[in-house]
């Protein structure tokens, strides 16, 4: 079984490029050039230099001893929360802004839900002096005010998505419409491992630095490259894709995905796509998505805005369908509790997204000798208001 992408842009039966003809020239240009550009030594050099000096990589692989003691196994945290801008998102935006420059693009657009990808995009646009427009659902703009302010301070224009449910799904629609209207000068920086081929693969490759580092860091600490398990939360799935990438073809490494169950899988307010979704087309790719029997895409729910997406990336659909990965889902309550636990055992306040990955211990019992690497995809600063309300702090 092959878990990586094939020549036609599919992971098993998932992926492809289901796009209107208006987008074809841009997506096709990217498809033809992305691997070649990524492999150029000048590109690699600049990418890795920026990851080191600007993002602050490598991010530490931290042995969480008190958390390990609590859950009876050896837990390592991959500290993506320590990256510049506070999450893994910047690995991808650094890569894509360099890609956009190589393609001669002079204007950047992006979608954002919670605002993390928007901030990461606005950051690299400021760094490179390139015009930046970020689409964000009107409802998200209201509930993520600090990130909106950050993007504005970084010089980006934040445009409200007023259509549909006015959240991430609709912000993505608006960004795609912008790209249709501006086909020549604009590059669209998609923030997750979703969208038409080659986006899922390109984003995954930029994020794969996460698992690349885990391998040598674990070698240093444990004398072995491969953990028993890698664990990540999944919305669209970019931090998960990066965390799994170098372990996909290594069957001795267990792959664990934790989705957002919201108020419970059967509550009607959930974002657990693998449990509730069916195969279909969303934002240009064939993948698992939450939809009505009639094929209308439904609105997901999670307390974590970063997991509040009705689909998952095609790689994850394939990992799920093939049985390569084990999928669990954590409720709002479980994720919040896990976030509080990490804060008080290790002195690290995680993003609520990452709290879902940490909630894996509610669902799976590990053996005492198991080495479990968890992607701590982001820090909790942006979520303080939600924590304050939830815990009445």
């Amino acid at each position, binding site marked *: 079984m092959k878990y990586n992408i094939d020549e036609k842009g599919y992971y098993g039966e998932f992926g*492809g*490029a*289901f*796009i*209107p*003809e*208006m987008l*074809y*020239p841009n997506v096709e240009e990217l498809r033809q050039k992305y691997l070649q550009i990524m492999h150029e030594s000048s590109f690699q050099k600049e990418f890795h230099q920026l990851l080191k000096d600007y993002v602050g990589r490598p991010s530490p692989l931290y042995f969480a001893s008190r958390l390990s003691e609590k859950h009876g196994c050896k837990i390592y945290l991959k500290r993506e929360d320590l990256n510049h801008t506070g999450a893994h998102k910047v690995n991808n935006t650094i890569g894509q802004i360099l890609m956009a420059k190589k393609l001669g693009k002079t204007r950047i657009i992006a979608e954002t839900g919670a605002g993390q990808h928007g901030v990461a995009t606005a950051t690299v646009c400021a760094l490179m002096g390139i015009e930046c427009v970020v689409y964000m659902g009107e409802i998200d703009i209201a509930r993520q005010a600090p990130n909106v302010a950050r993007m504005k301070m970084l010089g980006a224009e934040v445009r409200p998505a007023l*259509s*549909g449910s006015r959240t991430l*799904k*609709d912000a993505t*629609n608006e960004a*795609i*419409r912008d790209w*249709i*209207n*501006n*086909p*020549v000068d604009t590059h669209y920086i998609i923030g997750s491992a979703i969208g038409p081929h080659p986006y899922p693969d390109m984003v995954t490759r930029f994020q794969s630095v996460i698992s690349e580092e885990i391998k040598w860091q674990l070698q240093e600490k444990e004398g072995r490259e491969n953990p028993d398990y890698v664990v990540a939360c999944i919305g669209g799935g970019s931090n998960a894709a990066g965390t799994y990438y170098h372990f996909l073809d290594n069957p001795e490494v267990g792959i664990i995905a934790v989705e957002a169950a919201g108020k419970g899988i059967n509550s009607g307010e959930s974002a657990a796509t693998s449990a509730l979704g*069916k195969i*279909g*087309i*969303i*934002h*240009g790719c064939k993948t698992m998505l939450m*939809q009505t*029997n*009639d*094929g*209308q*895409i*439904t609105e997901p729910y999670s307390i974590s805005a970063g997991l509040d997406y009705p689909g998952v990336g095609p790689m994850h659909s394939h990992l799920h369908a093939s049985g390569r990965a084990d999928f669990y889902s954590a409720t709002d309550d479980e994720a919040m509790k896990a976030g509080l636990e990490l804060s008080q055992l290790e002195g690290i306040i995680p993003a609520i997204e990452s709290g879902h990955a940490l909630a894996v211990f509610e669902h799976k019992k590990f053996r005492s000798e198991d080495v479990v690497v968890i992607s701590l995809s982001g820090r909790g600063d942006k979520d303080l208001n939600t924590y304050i309300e939830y815990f009445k702090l």
Partner: protein
Amino acid sequence: MYFVLCISYFFKMNRINQKLLEPKKLLSIYFTAGYPNLDDTVKIIQELEKSGVDMIEIGLPFSDPLADGPTIQKSSTAALKNGMTTEILFRQLAAIRESVSIPLIIMGYFNPILQFGVESFCKKCSDIGIDGLIIPDLPVDVYHESYQTIFEKYGLLNIFLITPQTSVERIRFIDSVSKGFIYMVSSASVTGAKSGFGQTQQDYFERIASMNLSNPQIVGFGISNSETFQQATKMAKGAIIGSAFIKHLTENGVDSISSFIKPIRK
């Protein structure tokens, strides 16, 4: 010989191909099924035919219409809120061929069709007397590889879009796969974004006309009235009006359709 007979049989059967043989410039109208009211579908189609429209695109509403501007988005959202579904649309159209004879095309995004089942969808269209489909997010390559035989089995024409950015090579490929007409998007935009044509569009229309494609072209996007209809059809076989018609329905309701259609051809 058998092949030629098949083709001529096929041509006789499809109303779009027949219509394209008429010497006049064609006016095609798009509307969103289930808007303004759930049960307006049949009445709108009948009124459009009575008013002299040549062809109709019935929009199957979708929650996430990527290629559409605000007007069609809003009508789609409203239609879904009114309760429109694929099943209901087929039910509404079940007897449409008793009262309407012009070509009917269903325009919809791919996901609802995929969920219905592509073959079941095509069969249903064929039973009802639908002549063609426009599925903006089903690329010509995927269609050609996976679905063309199914569409053809049910005598449905699949209509593809080209834009000012489409390469010559790809236009030739689209022309070779198409069996009716080519939907020529007038400018790089979503639907309803701008009205009217400048020199860039005129040049593009001429460039495409000079390619001598085997399929006639019908222009869409940016046509809203008599003036833009004349401009668009100077080189092309016809033109499609969508957003402007929906705006008219929003403001004037379904009883005044002819007052919108009649002045377009003067």
